[in-house]
C-alpha cells in the first residue's frame, strides 16, 4: 500500500543514521543497498501509472539509485504528473525522517544513547546523488530536522550546524575527490558500522565527509560521555570476570555468530559484548593502551555480568534523559521549577557537556549543564550550574546509610563538575571560556525515599555546598 512506503524510507534513514539499536528490524539495511546494482530505469519499478509508490522498498531504492532519482526529479521539474506525484511522496518521507531523527538523535526519544550519535556520513550512502534531486531531498531533511529540533529548544548554533552538514556535506564531497574517494569511504564505513552493537563513536569520528561542526560535536560528546561513564562503571563492576592466565584467555574469546544458548545472534548486547571482550583482551596483551585512569589491565567480565551491567547502564541513561526532559520543560515554562536553579532569565540546558579542568587532563561530562544566557557576555559572570544524576535504592535505609551513600556522590560531583572549568562544546555560548561553576547539583531518583530520609539528605547536601534534587522517573 502506498501509505506504507514513506514509512519504509523513514525507517531506513533512522536505522542507518542512528546506529543499529534504534531502528526497526524491518528496515532496508545499508548492506543490502551496497549490493544493489541499478537496473535500467523504468517508472514501473517504483510506482503505478499515477505515480503512487508500489512495493515496500521502492522509495529506499529510488533515492539510493542516483541516476533514477535525478531522472524523476528532472521529469517532475518539467511538469510530468507522474514524476511530480512520485517525487512529492519522497519529499514527504524525508520530511518525516528529519523530524524523527531530531527527536531521537537529540535525545528526546531514543533510549540507547551510545548508538544514537548521528552517523551523518551514511546519509551519503542512503542518498548518494549530489545533483539537484538529491540536494532537494537533503534540504528538506535538514529543514524538518531543524524545525523539530527548534521546537525542542535546541540552540540555533546547533541547528545551523545540522543544516550545513546536511546540505553542505554534498558539496564538500564533490570537491573531495570523486569516485575513488567515495569508494574508500564506503569501505571504511562498512568496516566500522557492521559490528552489530559497536558503539557509534568510531563511526562518528570518521572525519571524511562531514565538516567539524557543532551538531557533530554534540553527538560525539554525547557518545564520548556515555562511553566514559560506561567505562567507569565497567571498571568498578564487581561481577565475575575471567580468572585464567592471559595465555589461556584466548580460548574463551566470544564469537559473534555463536552466542550462549538462549541469546539470539542479533541480541544488541551480545554484539557489544564481543567488541568489549576484544578490547579488554587487547589491553591485557598490550596491543591497546589502557583507558585513562586505569593502572592495571582488567580481565573481561563474563557475559552475564556484562549484560547486567549494560542493563543497569541503560536504566541510568533513561533516568538522565528523564531529568533533561524535565529541565527542558521547566525552561520552556519559564517559571522556575524543581530542577532548574531559581531566578534564571534565559536558562540554556545542555546534557553530556564536556568540561576540561585546569589540574587534570581528563574531560568530565556533566549530565546536565545549565547556564543563564542572560549572564553570558563581556564583563558578565556567567551563572552556570552543573548536574550529576544518580540512582540508588534507598528503600529501607536509615538516614545514616542514605547520607553515607550521598557523601561520596557529593565529593565526586564537586571534584568532577565543580570549580573552574572550560566548556568544550563548540556552539555552546561558553565554548572555550573558563568559568567558575556557580553550583554543583545532584539529582537523585526520589521514588523509594521516605520523607525523613529526604530531609536528612537535603541538609547534608547544604552542608557540602551541593544542591540536591529529587526526580521521580
Amino acid at each position: 500500500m502506498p501509505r506504507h512506503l514513506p514509512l519504509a524510507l523513514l525507517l531506513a534513514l533512522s536505522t542507518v543514521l542512528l546506529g543499529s539499536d534504534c531502528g526497526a528490524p524491518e528496515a532496508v539495511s545499508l548492506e543490502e543497498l551496497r549490493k544493489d546494482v541499478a537496473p535500467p530505469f523504468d517508472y514501473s519499478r517504483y510506482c503505478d501509472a499515477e505515480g503512487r509508490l508500489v512495493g515496500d522498498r521502492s522509495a529506499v531504492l529510488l533515492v539510493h539509485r542516483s541516476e533514477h532519482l535525478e531522472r524523476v526529479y528532472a521529469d517532475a521539474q518539467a511538469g510530468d504528473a507522474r514524476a511530480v506525484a512520485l517525487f512529492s511522496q519522497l519529499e514527504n518521507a524525508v520530511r518525516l525522517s528529519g523530524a524523527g531523527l531530531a527527536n531521537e538523535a537529540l535525545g528526546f526519544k531514543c533510549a540507547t544513547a551510545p548508538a544514537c550519535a548521528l552517523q551523518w556520513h551514511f546519509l551519503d550512502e542512503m542518498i548518494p546523488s549530489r545533483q539537484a534531486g538529491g540536494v532537494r531531498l537533503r534540504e528538506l531533511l535538514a529543514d524538518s530536522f531543524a524545525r523539530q529540533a527548534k521546537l525542542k529548544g535546541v540552540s540555533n548554533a546547533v541547528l545551523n550546524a545540522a543544516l550545513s552538514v546536511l546540505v553542505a556535506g554534498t558539496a564538500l564531497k564533490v570537491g573531495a575527490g570523486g569516485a575513488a574517494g567515495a569508494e574508500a569511504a564506503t569501505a571504511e564505513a562498512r568496516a566500522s558500522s557492521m559490528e552489530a552493537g559497536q558503539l557509534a563513536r568510531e563511526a562518528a569520528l570518521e572525519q571524511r565527509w562531514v565538516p567539524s561542526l557543532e551538531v557533530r560535536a554534540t553527538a560525539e560528546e554525547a557518545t564520548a560521555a556515555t562511553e566514559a561513564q560506561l567505562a567507569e562503571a565497567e571498571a568498578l563492576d564487581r561481577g565475575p570476570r575471567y580468572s585464567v592466565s592471559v595465555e589461556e584467555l584466548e580460548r574463551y574469546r566470544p564469537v559473534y555468530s555463536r552466542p550462549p544458548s538462549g541469546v539470539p545472534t542479533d541480541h544488541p548486547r551480545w554484539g557489544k559484548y564481543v567488541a568489549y571482550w576484544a578490547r579488554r583482551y587487547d589491553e591485557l596483551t598490550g596491543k591497546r593502551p589502557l583507558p585513562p585512569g586505569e593502572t592495571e589491565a582488567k580481565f573481561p567480565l563474563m557475559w552475564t555480568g556484562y549484560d547486567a551491567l549494560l542493563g543497569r547502564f541503560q536504566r541510568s541513561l533513561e533516568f538522565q534523559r528523564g531529568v533533561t526532559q524535565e529541565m527542558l520543560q521547566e525552561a520552556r515554562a519559564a517559571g522556575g521549577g524543581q530542577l532548574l536553579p531559581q531566578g534564571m532569565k534565559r536558562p540554556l540546558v545542555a546534557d553530556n557537556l564536556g568540561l576540561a579542568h585546569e589540574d587534570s587532563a581528563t574531560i568530565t561530562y556533566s549530565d546536565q549543564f545549565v547556564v543563564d544566557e542572560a549572564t553570558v557576555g563581556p564583563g558578565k559572570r556567567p551563572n552556570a550550574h552543573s548536574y550529576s544524576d544518580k540512582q540508588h535504592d534507598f528503600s529501607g535505609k536509615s538516614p545514616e546509610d542514605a547520607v553515607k551513600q550521598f557523601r561520596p556522590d557529593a565529593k565526586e560531583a564537586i571534584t568532577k563538575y565543580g570549580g573552574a572549568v572550560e566548556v568544550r562544546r563548540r556552539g555552546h555560548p561558553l565554548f572555550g571560556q573558563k568559568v567558575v561553576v556557580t553550583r554543583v547539583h545532584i539529582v537523585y531518583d526520589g521514588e523509594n525515599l521516605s520523607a525523613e530520609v529526604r530531609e536528612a539528605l537535603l541538609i547534608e547536601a547544604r552542608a557540602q555546598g551541593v544542591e540536591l534534587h529529587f526526580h521521580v522517573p
Partner: protein
Amino acid sequence: MSPDEWNKSDEFMLDLYSPLNPFDRGFEGLEPVLEVIESLEPELRPDKLSLKRDLKYSRQMLRKRFHETVFGGSVRSLMLVRSKPPEGRLTLTGAVRDHGPEFSVSLHLRPFAFFREPGQAEKRAEHLLTLVRAMAAHLPLSLGRGHSFVDLCMGPDPHVKDTSPDRPIYEVFWLNIFGPHMVERIGRQRLLSTPCALMEELPGGAFLWLTRPTPADFDSEEARLAQARALVHLRPELSLESTLATLRQRSLVFTPIPIQFHPDVAEILSREVDIRGLKHKRQNVELFNHYRPPPVSEWIPASECPPPDVDNVSVRIATYTNRSAEELIALFHTPVPAVMDGTLEALPRLDWHLWHNRWGKDITQDQRVTLMTALGAWLGRYLVNLLGGRWVPRKNIFESAVIIGDRAWLPFLRAYRGLSGLDAPLDYSCTQFFREAQRLSRQHTH
C-alpha cells in the same frame, strides 16, 4: 497507641555554628573539638568514623585518614556515626559560605523517644547542655538550636539554607543559641527579658537559652505556649494568637490517631504511610482507614474447574514453579530481597513495591504479560507450598488453577488484575489473595 509508637521516625537534632573553622588548622586544629566529642556521655557518643568505609572511631585512625575529609571546593567534612541505639550521626563541616567561613557541628539522634524516657529526660537534656558549653569553650558560637527534626522541618525556619548572622528570627526552639551579632541586633536587654526556662551567657558572647527544661515535651501545650511567647517577645510585630495556632496545628502531627487498616492490606498501607513521612501520617492514616479492598473473586468451585488440557502436565507445572517464579525473583530480588526466601513477609513487601513504583500503570503491554506470568506462578507456588494446593495447568493461562479443598484459585487472573491500573497492586494484592485462600483452607481442614 502511644506518641512514641506513633512517631518512630523523628530525630532529635542539635546544630551549632561558629565563624571560626578549626579545619583551617588541619587535624591539630580539630583536636579540641574531638576531645569534646570523646568526652560525651557513652549513651550519646558516636563510635564509628564514616570515611571511604566505616571504621571504628579512634583519634589515631582519623589522623591517618584525615585527607579523606576533603570534599573539594572549600568544604571539609567528617561524619561520625553512632551505630547503637539511639542511632545517629554527628557531622563536622568546615566551609566558606556567602557570609564567610563557617564551622558546624550537627548531631542527630533517633528515636526522639530517647529524650522522653521517664526518669532519664532531665539527665539527657543536661548532657546536651554540657556538650554545648564544652563546644563554646573552644569555639565562638554564632547560631544554634536543638529540637525535634520533623517539627523544625515543618516550620518557616530555612534551617541550613541560611545560617548567616543577619538572618531573621524565624522561630524559637527547645534550645536556642544566639551569637553576639544577633544579641546586638535584638538588644541585650530584650533578649535577657525573654520568657524562658534558662538563659545563660556562653564564652565568646553568645547566649544559650531554653524554652523548656527538656526537649521531651516540645509539642505539648505548655511548650508551644512558651515557644510562642518567646518568639512574640523577640518579634513584637507577631501576634501571640496566630503564632500559637500555627504551633498547635503542628503538634497534631505528633498526636496519634487510631490505625484501623483492613488487616489483609495493613502491612502494605503501613509501609506507604511510613515512606510518606510523619508530617503526613495523620492525613494518610485517615485516608487508608477508610480503604477496603474488593473481596477476592479470582476463584471458582473446584467442582467446576476444567481438567488439565496441556500436553504434558508435569512439564507445565515445572515451568510454573521453576522458570516463571524464578523470573519474578530475578526481577525483584534487589528491591525486595524477601522474594527470595519464600516467607510470608515477601507478599506484602512485593505488593507494596509494585504499588508504590507504579507497576500497575507505567508498563507496556509486553511487560505486563511477562510480569503477569511470573507473578501468577510465584503466587501459585505459595498456595502449593504453604497451603498444600495442587496445580491444574490449562492452555489458557487464566484458567490455570491451584486447587485447595473445594476451591480452585486462579493466581494468574489475580496477577493480571493486580497489574491493570495505578492502584491495582493494592486492590488485587497477592497478600489478600493468599490470606483468603489460607482462611478457607483452614475452615476446610477443621
